[in-house]
Each structure stands twice: as C-alpha cells, then as structure tokens.
C-alpha cells in the first residue's frame, strides 16, 4: 500500500525543506557523521541521527512545529528506511534493488525477492536488538516476534519509481561509498540543495508465510492489499508493528483459505519441519502449474530456497533449545541433507532448476537462457554471501546454517549450469577450486604457525599489554631484516671467498704477521677480534683484489661492492615500505574530537590477562580520566609560569651540558686510544685497550637515568616528557656515534699517512730483496718469503670494521649485564630481602624494575645503525647482530617475564610504531652517510681488501663495465651517466616530489576543513 498523501507530503516536505537550503547540509552531515548507508542502514528508527535532524529542520521551519509532520516522519521510520535521491538520474527501481543480493532495507528486514510488481521483504530475525521504535508502548517480545526470521511481507511498487540513483551493475552491491557519492560532505558537494527528494516507501502487505508457502499471484496480493488497508485504517493511523503482525496472521490464514489450499490444514496440524517440507513440495507444485512468466518462476525458486533456509534455522533453534549438541544436530541434519541431495540429483537428472521432493511434480521444464543467467547470478550472489559471511554480526549458529545453505545452493546449481560435457569439466573445476582453497587455508595456517616466537610474544602481551609486546614485535622485525642482510653478506661474500678464494697463508694479507703470531691465538681474540680473527673472512682486509675467483669466475670485488650497496638499499626500501604501510593503517588517527569517548570505549586492552597488569591498567585509566577532566576544567590556567619556565630552561641547559660532556669524553677517549695504539697496545692493560667501547656503553647506560632526573624538574605532562626524554636519549646516542666516527676519521687519516711511509719503506725493502738475488727477472717472485714476514700497510678498513665489531659486542655485553644486574639481581634482592627489611621493598624504594620500552627500542635502533655503518668493512657484522638479536630475544623475554613489573606509564603501541620507524630511518640515513663518504672519497689501502690497487672503491663498476659487457653497453652507460642527462632527471624527481607533497598537503587541509565543518555543524 502506498500512502499516497503520505508520500507526496514527504516529497513536499523535502522540497519545502530543501528550498531553504538547510536540509542538504543536514542530510549531508548526518550521513557523513553516521557513516551509514542510509538505505540499508543499521538504523534504529527514531534514533537515527537523521530523524533528529529532520525534527530540527521542522522546528526551524516552523511548519506546524512538526506536530503532524513529525508523526509522519515517525511513521515513516516505523515502516521503512529513507531514500534520498538526486534528481535527474532515472532508472527503474528494479535495476536499482537487486533481488537476493539484497540491499538490506533496514536492519530488521531483508529484501527477499522482486518482480516487476512486488517487492518481498523478509525479516532477518534480529532478536537481541529490538528496535526501540515502539513509542506506542509495545512489549519487547511482541516487537521481536514481529520480525522473526522467515516472516515475509510484500510490497507493490507503483510508487514513484522515477527518481532513483543509477542502476546497479552486475553483482555490484551498493556500498557506503556509493551513497557517499550522493551525499558528500557539504563542502565538497556539487549537488544543489533543491535536488534532494525524499521518497517514502510504505510497507504494503504483511503476509505471514510459514516455511515454504509461496508468494501468491497478483490478484491475491491485491486482495490482501485492500484488506490490509482496511486493517490499518481500523487500527488507526499509526500501524504499530504488533497490529500489523496481528493482521498479518489473520491475513495469512485468510489468504490460505482463499487459496483453497487443501494442504494448508494438514500443514498446520503436522509437525513443523515436516510441514515445511511439504510446503516446499507444494510450492514446486504450484510452480509447475503456474502459468506466470519467467520472473515469477525465478521468484518461486528463490522462495523455495528461503524456505529451506528457514527450515534449517528452525532446526538449529530446536537443537539449541532442547540442549542437543552439535553432533546430534549434525546427525539430525544428515538425513535431511541426504534428502536434499537426492532431490538435487533428481533435479540434475530432470534438468530442472527448482528443488522438489514431491512425487506429483513431473512436468518437464526447459532451462532458458534467461533463467540460466539468473541462476548464474544467484549462484554468484550466494558465493559472495559465503565470502562476506564472516563480516556479519550474527550468531555462529546462524552463520553456520546460512553458510551451509549457501554452499548447498551453490553446489546444486553450479552443476546445473554446465551442460553435457561442459558439466563434467565444470564440476571438476569446482572441485579443484575447492581443493585449492583448502590448500590455501592450510598453507595460511602453516604460515602463521611458522612465525617465530609468536607464542612468547602473545604471552608477554597478555601479561604486559600491547605496548611491551610492540617492542618484541619490533625486535622480531629487526631480526628478520638482519637475517636477510646476513644472508646477503654470507652467501655472496663470505662463503665464496672462503671456498674459492686463495687459502689462508697464501698472501701477506691473509696471514697473521710475524710480530703478532705469538698472541694470535690468545683468548682475547674472541673479545677484540684481533689475531686470527682479524685475518679471516670476517674482515675487509682478508679479501683479495683478484677480479675473478674460483672455477665459477666469481667476481669477488664487484660482488663485495654490490652487496655493500645492496644492504643499504634494501634497508632503505624495507623501512620506508613499512612506514608507508603503518601510515596507511593509522589513517586519520590524529583526530582529537573524540578524546573522551575514546578514553572510555577503547582504553581497555582486552589482551591483558594478568590481574596485576589489570590493576595497573585500572589505575592508569583512572588517572587518564582524572587528568582529562582536570584539563577540561582548567584548560588554560597556568600557575607560576615563571618558575616553570625557569626550571625548563635550566633542565634543557643541563641536558645540553650532559650531551656536550659525553661527546667530549668520547672524543678524548678515542684520541687517547690512538696514542696508546701508536705506542703499542701491548704495554697497556685491558682497560686501556677497551676504553672507548666501555666509555660509550657506560654513557649509554647512565645518561638516560640522568635525563630522567632532569626531566622531573620540568614538570611536563607525562607524554610530552616521554617525548623529550626520547629526543634527548636520541641526541645522546647520535652525538656519541658521530664523535666516534669523527675520531675514527682522524685515525683513518693518520693511517693513510702511515700507509705512505710504509709504501715507501716497502719499495725499499723489495728493492733490497731483489737486488740481493736475481735483479733481472721481476715477473715471478723468485724468492719464497714467508707471507708473514712481508711488511704491510696498516689497512684502515679492517681497523674500522674491527672498531665497529668491538663496539657491537661490548654494547651487547653491557645490555645483558644491565639486564642481569639491574633487573634480575634487583628482583631477587627485593623478593628475598623483603622478609627481613625495615620497609616494604616491593612497593618502597627499590621495588621491581619496569620494562623500559623507549630505552630498549632506542638501543636496538642504534645498534642497527652501527651494523649498517660497519657492515661494509666487516662482513661478519650482520652475523654477529643476528646472534645478538636471537639471544636477546630469549634473554629479554625471560627477564621481562620473571623480573619486571608492568609499567605504569602508558606508551601506546599503535601510535609509536611509526615513531620508531622514523627514528630508524633517520639513523639509517645518518649511518649511511659516513659509509658512503668513505667509499667515495677515501682511497682504499694498497695492500688489503678487494679494492686494493684502485684509487677509489667504486671503480669496480667501471672496470666490470669495461671487461664483462659489450662495448656498446659501456657507451650507453657513459651517455646515460653524463651530467646533461642526469641533471634533468634529478630535476624531474625533485619536481615530482614537490608536486606530490603539495597535493598531499592540500588533501590534508581539505580534511581538516571538513573536520572543522563537522564539528561546527554538530554544535548547532
């Protein structure tokens, strides 16, 4: 039934409203705010934001103060959802609403089937969330019943169909974005206000159809229409759901009698399921005798389908109610399924598309093309349903039953789609796809099972919340990267050299010099990587400058160079990619307009499973609430601003002093160590030898604590304080690293000087050697000098590599020792001395230590920076790092679980991820700078390493180009690398970066603008 006047009045209403220009904004806003598909909307009628908006508009317009209109709107919500369309797009609504795939009309109704005349909708059985639409004082139960699954109602469609949005394409579901096209944000919307129309869909006939009962033909429904009109008229203007339902029942009975259906009586009497089945049979029978056109048949078909679904639903319900278990239920279902299958078989045999178990049905039907297409469509829809089923907030039972239903349907009709030979092939294909899917699932499971330390991390997560776990995930990620770097260096540099290069002792650079031979096997080798370790594949100096080695003609120097460059390139790529992905995930995370609500709704971390952590979490949530309230109350009330300022300036001054002091200390120490080195290390003890590393590690250990003390002066908000703290530690590490590098550079220069001297000496030495024996023959080395005795240059590259390795090792040691002493011993002390101490140790002064996420992350990042810097000169560095990460994973996991308490300061996991990454990227950049500088601008040592004999390291490339590629390639490369080409290219890149940057900025601005608009419109 269409409430003609109602509809028109609504249209008029909309037109009226829109003429003022206000509603568009309102509608748009509502839509944008509630993020809903207005049409399908999971709306609860009156609580739909739109409703409020309409009311407001009505009030504003003063059109009868909304008394009558309000009612209409209310009614309107009662019956259906709302449609807003743009004018000018015309289509038949059939195109717009697709059968089956069912835009859900509102949350309680599902579009069931559709012909040119009627629209049938079906309840979806939402029991748990009864719509609060009963302002008429309905009882909850009645309401719920009203839209129980399987209740069907029917609508004629002679209402205004001319104003509808564009038709749907094949298998397309109308999505949110689609609606968004019609209602974009007000600022962006090109649609003018007066274009909006509102069409009301009125519920027409509510016909209760049990199970398999079908939709009657038009006369029946028309008759019922009239009845319904009468009923509603009688019931009053506002037909409440209950009255409607009552009518529906009456009508159903009435309709049944009208249809002079004999089976109806028996159906009622018999068992329900039984009845349903027979009902289905009857439906099929009806269909057989039905003289309607194709659409009607299709409709019937679907009705059958639905009825089966209901069937199963009911079964499930029954199973649940009687306390029967799944197994039993399954057993229950089995015969049923079998029956269905039999039916299906029969169908296939008969080439009939509709399910039918009744014996009376024997009519042959041809499958026309049209039907085939329709079937196909349906199958597709079911498939889609299967795919999207996971995303529906249904009970598992319902999901299961729907899934089974849909699968059965697909199975059944997919077979029918193919014909003759094609059928078999089709079935085979289907089977294979199924197998493939299963395999994929298994593989997926396997993959998740293969992720290392997953269980450990989960355990930690459940004890300490997601923020601590994020550190371990970060650690794991680092481990993965280092594994790959290790694979690169190990597989392409170290192994080939070890296997195919000249063996140890064959060349001076591969031999321990005579002077060191005595101490080469000392235990200290393990500690400071001198002696045999220095003259092995672990370091740069060992590699020979032979162009190719072994039977594979492996180009060692080239490989060495490319691996060095590739390591850096890969790291850049992976870090940037991860950052981009994180940024995508975060989306518009920095929206502060829901500060309180977020605190309320999302602050609980459901992963927490430890009561202690839970207590901490309670406390932190409480404080955050209190803080937020206080902030809100006196947002701009600062007291004693001068003192705070003074303190902050003082704190920053102190921090700067600390930084400068630590920098100078390192510089001093490195200088001193050079002096020691010049005088010969043998004269000094252990401390002098490892002074640099130790000082750096100690600084890294104590300065953060100092900063912590300083920051307590400042009296910042914890989050800001944390940021400052991180920044200071970062600066400290960075400063230390760079002073270290600068000192190293000095040393390199010294060594270069030394090298010159050595070179000179060597020529004299060689000359004396040759002069003494056979002066003429200089092609082959005539005298067998032991390579250990040959004088050699200082080889600064190996020195640099060694320094980095030592630094890494000592850093690792310090970390471990800190964990052992700082955490473990402290925990033990607190635990056992608590019984005999004057005050409570556990809650008093020492207490247990917290897990310091930021410090640990920073440590990890800087460690990684050292790896990147040093790995060119010490190919073993990634290997060492992998080892370090591996052990620290276990050690830290253990330490965290056994001797740390969950921290009180909350460091949000998801936000900080990209923060870590950004720091990592920064460090990566900074650490590649010196490496690249040394590669490009310092000549390599003359007698060690793969690049010896060249003036610069990158000459390997040109050499390879010359020798291994055809000459034209070299030419092309020459052209490509001349500045005339490169400069425009760089210019182009810069321009494109600029352009992209500008666009992103403008997008951001637009976003902000929209947000502002939303807020202002909300305040209205």
């Amino acid at each position: 039934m269409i409430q003609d006047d109602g509809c028109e009045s609504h249209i008029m209403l909309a037109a009226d409203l829109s003429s003022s220009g206000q509603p568009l904004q309102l509608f748009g806003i509502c839509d944008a705010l509630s993020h809903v598909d207005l049409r399908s909307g999971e709306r609860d009628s009156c609580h739909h934001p739109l409703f409020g908006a309409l009311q407001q508009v009505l009030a504003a317009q003063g059109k009868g103060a909304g008394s009558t209109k309000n009612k209409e709107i209310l009614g309107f919500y009662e019956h259906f959802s709302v449609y807003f369309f743009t004018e000018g797009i015309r289509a038949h609504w059939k195109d717009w609403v697709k059968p089956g795939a069912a835009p859900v009309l509102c949350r309680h109704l599902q579009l069931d089937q559709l012909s040119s005349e009627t629209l049938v909708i079906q309840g979806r059985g939402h029991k748990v969330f009864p719509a609060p639409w009963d302002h008429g004082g309905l009882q909850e139960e009645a309401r719920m019943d009203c839209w129980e699954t399987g209740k069907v109602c029917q609508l004629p469609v002679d209402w205004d169909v001319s104003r509808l949005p564009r038709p749907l394409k094949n298998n397309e579901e109308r999505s949110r974005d689609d609606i968004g096209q019609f209602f974009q944000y007000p600022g962006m919307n090109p649609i003018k206000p007066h274009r909006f129309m509102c069409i009301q869909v009125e519920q027409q006939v509510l016909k209760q159809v049990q199970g398999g009962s079908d939709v009657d033909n038009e006369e029946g429904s028309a008759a019922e229409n009239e009845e319904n009109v009468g009923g509603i008229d009688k019931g009053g203007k506002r037909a409440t759901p209950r009255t409607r339902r009552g009518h529906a029942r009456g009508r159903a009975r009435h309709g049944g009698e009208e249809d002079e259906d004999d089976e109806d009586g028996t159906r009622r009497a018999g068992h329900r399921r039984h009845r349903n089945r027979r009902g289905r049979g009857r439906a099929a029978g009806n269909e057989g005798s039905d003289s309607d056109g194709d659409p009607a048949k299709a409709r019937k078909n679907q009705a059958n389908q639905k009825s089966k679904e209901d069937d199963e639903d009911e079964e499930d319900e029954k199973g649940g109610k009687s306390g029967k278990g799944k197994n039993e239920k399954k057993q229950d279902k089995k015969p049923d399924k079998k029956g269905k299958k039999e039916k299906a078989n029969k169908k296939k045999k008969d080439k009939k598309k509709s399910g039918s178990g009744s014996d009376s049905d024997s009519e042959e039907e041809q499958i026309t093309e049209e039907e085939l297409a329709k079937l196909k469509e349906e199958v597709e829809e079911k498939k889609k349903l299967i795919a999207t089923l996971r995303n529906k907030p249904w009970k598992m039972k319902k999901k299961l039953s729907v899934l089974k239903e849909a699968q059965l349907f697909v199975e059944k009709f997919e077979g029918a789609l193919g014909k003759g030979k094609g059928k078999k092939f089709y079935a085979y294909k289907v089977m294979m796809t199924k197998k493939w899917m299963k395999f994929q699932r298994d593989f997926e499971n396997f993959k998740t099972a293969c992720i290392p330390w997953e269980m450990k991390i989960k355990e930690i997560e459940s004890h300490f919340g997601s923020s601590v776990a994020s550190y371990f995930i970060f650690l794991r990620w680092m481990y993965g990267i280092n594994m790959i770097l290790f694979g690169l260096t190990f597989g392409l540099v170290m192994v080939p050299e070890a296997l195919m290069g000249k063996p140890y002792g064959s060349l001076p650079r591969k031999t321990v010099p005579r002077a060191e031979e005595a101490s080469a096997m000392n235990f200290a080798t393990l500690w400071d990587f001198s002696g045999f370790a220095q003259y092995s594949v672990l370091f740069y100096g060992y590699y020979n400058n032979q162009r190719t080695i072994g039977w594979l003609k492996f180009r060692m120097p080239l490989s060495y160079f490319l691996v060095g460059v590739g390591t850096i390139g890969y790291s850049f790529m992976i870090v940037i990619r991860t950052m981009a992905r994180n940024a995508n995930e975060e989306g518009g995370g920095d929206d502060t307009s829901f500060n309180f609500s977020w605190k309320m709704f999302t602050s609980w971390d459901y992963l927490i499973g430890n009561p202690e952590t839970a207590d901490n979490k309670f406390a932190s949530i409480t404080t955050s609430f209190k803080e937020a309230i206080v902030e809100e109350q006196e947002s701009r009330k600062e007291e004693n601003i001068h003192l705070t300022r003074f303190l902050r300036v003082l704190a920053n001054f102190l921090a700067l002093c600390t930084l400068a002091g630590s920098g100078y200390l390192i510089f001093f120490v490195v200088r001193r160590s050079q002096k020691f080195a010049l005088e010969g290390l043998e004269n000094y003890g252990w401390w002098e030898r490892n002074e640099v590393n130790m000082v750096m590690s100690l600084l890294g250990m104590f300065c953060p604590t100092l900063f912590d003390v300083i920051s307590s002066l400042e009296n910042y908000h914890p989050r800001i304080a944390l940021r400052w703290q991180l920044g200071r530690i970062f600066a400290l590490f960075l400063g230390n690293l760079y002073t270290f590098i600068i000192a190293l550079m000095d040393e390199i220069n010294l060594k270069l000087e030394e090298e010159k001297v050595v070179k000179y000496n060597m020529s004299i030495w060689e000359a004396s050697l040759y002069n003494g024996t056979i002066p003429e023959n200089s092609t082959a080395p005539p005298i067998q000098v032991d390579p250990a005795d040959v004088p050699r240059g200082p080889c600064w590259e190996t020195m640099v590599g060694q320094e980095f390795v030592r630094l890494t090792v000592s850093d690792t040691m310090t970390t471990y020792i800190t964990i052992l002493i700082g955490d473990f011993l402290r925990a033990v002390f607190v635990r056992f001395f608590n019984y005999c101490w004057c005050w409570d140790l556990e809650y008093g002064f020492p207490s247990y230590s917290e897990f310091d996420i930021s410090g640990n992350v920073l440590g990890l990042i800087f460690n990684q920076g050292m790896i990147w810097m040093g790995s060119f000169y010490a190919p073993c560095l990634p290997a060492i790092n992998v080892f370090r990460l591996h052990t620290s994973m276990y050690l830290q996991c253990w330490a965290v679980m056994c001797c740390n308490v969950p921290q009180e300061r909350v460091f949000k996991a998801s936000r900080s991820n990209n923060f870590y990454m950004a720091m990592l990227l920064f460090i990566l950049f900074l650490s590649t700078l010196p490496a690249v500088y040394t590669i490009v601008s310092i000549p390599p040592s003359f007698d060690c390493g793969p690049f010896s004999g060249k003036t610069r390291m990158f000459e390997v490339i040109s050499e390879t180009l010359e020798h291994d590629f055809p000459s034209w390639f070299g030419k092309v490369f020459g052209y490509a690398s001349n500045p005339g080409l490169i400069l425009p290219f760089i210019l182009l890149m810069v321009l494109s970066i600029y352009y992209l940057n500008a666009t992103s900025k403008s997008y951001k601005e637009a976003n902000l603008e929209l947000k502002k608009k939303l807020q202002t419109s909300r305040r209205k």
Partner: protein
Amino acid sequence: AYKRFRELLPKEERENACSARVPKSRILTLPELRANPFQHRICRVFSTSDNGDDSMSFEDFLDMLSVFSDSATSDIKSHYAFRIFDFDDDGTLDRKDLEKLVNCLTGQGKESQLSNEEMEQLIRNILEESDIDKDGTINLSEFQHVVSRSPDFTSSFKIIL
C-alpha cells in the same frame, strides 16, 4: 580452540564436548578473561543459553573467539563492543550504562573510583562528543562512528588464546 574448550569441561563430558555447555563460572577461569572487567558482559553477550545462566556452548565460544580474533573486521568488533558496553541490553548507551562502564574501567578499589562530580563531568563530556543527535544516549551508529576513528580500537579489542 577446541582443546581449550574441552579443558573447561568436567571430565565426564569431554567426550561430547561439542554438545555440552560450559557454565559461566568455568568460562571466567580462562586466563584471558580472568582480569577483564567486562567478563560478565562478554559471557552474557555471547551466550545463547535460554535460562539466562550465561553458559556457553562450543559454538558460542567459537563465536566469541572469532569476534575477538585478528581477522574480524572493525565493524563486527565495534558491534559487539557496543553490546558489551550496553549493560541493560536496551540497544542504547544511556547515562547509567556509561556510569557502569566507567566504574568497570576504574576498578573496584575505593580510592580509584571517580567522585560523583568527576563522573558527572566525564559523562557529560562523552555525551557532548559522541551523541550526535542529542537525545541523551549513544546508539550503535554513533558508537561505531566514534570507535571507527579510534586508532587503537582494533588492536586492543582482541583476545588470543
């Protein structure tokens, strides 16, 4: 999951674990739920039991895990979160629900509870922010709208066995 579910059952029922129902008290002994302030709500929401004892069948259990799993969409998560927060099951979050929610979040301790004015202020702020249609309650769509913007809702709204 099946194993875990079976462990919750008493010995004699283990054989037909699929059909048995686990009483609420057993469900709450799960370490993942033990510390959760919403444990009772979670049981209530996911239970399909008729007599209101919040016991769970295997399917309910699965249902719960699937909602709390990584692969559930944020729509589903927010839907169920809403239902968990909706203490009186009336389909909206009104002041009482919010009050209860705050009390759940701040724990049982006397000193950790918010005072009345603070509570009042907090709830007013929350309603100001999220109650878009100004009817004094937060309904599902408003809730989903708010929560979908939150950066760490999906990452924290999960339980992993």
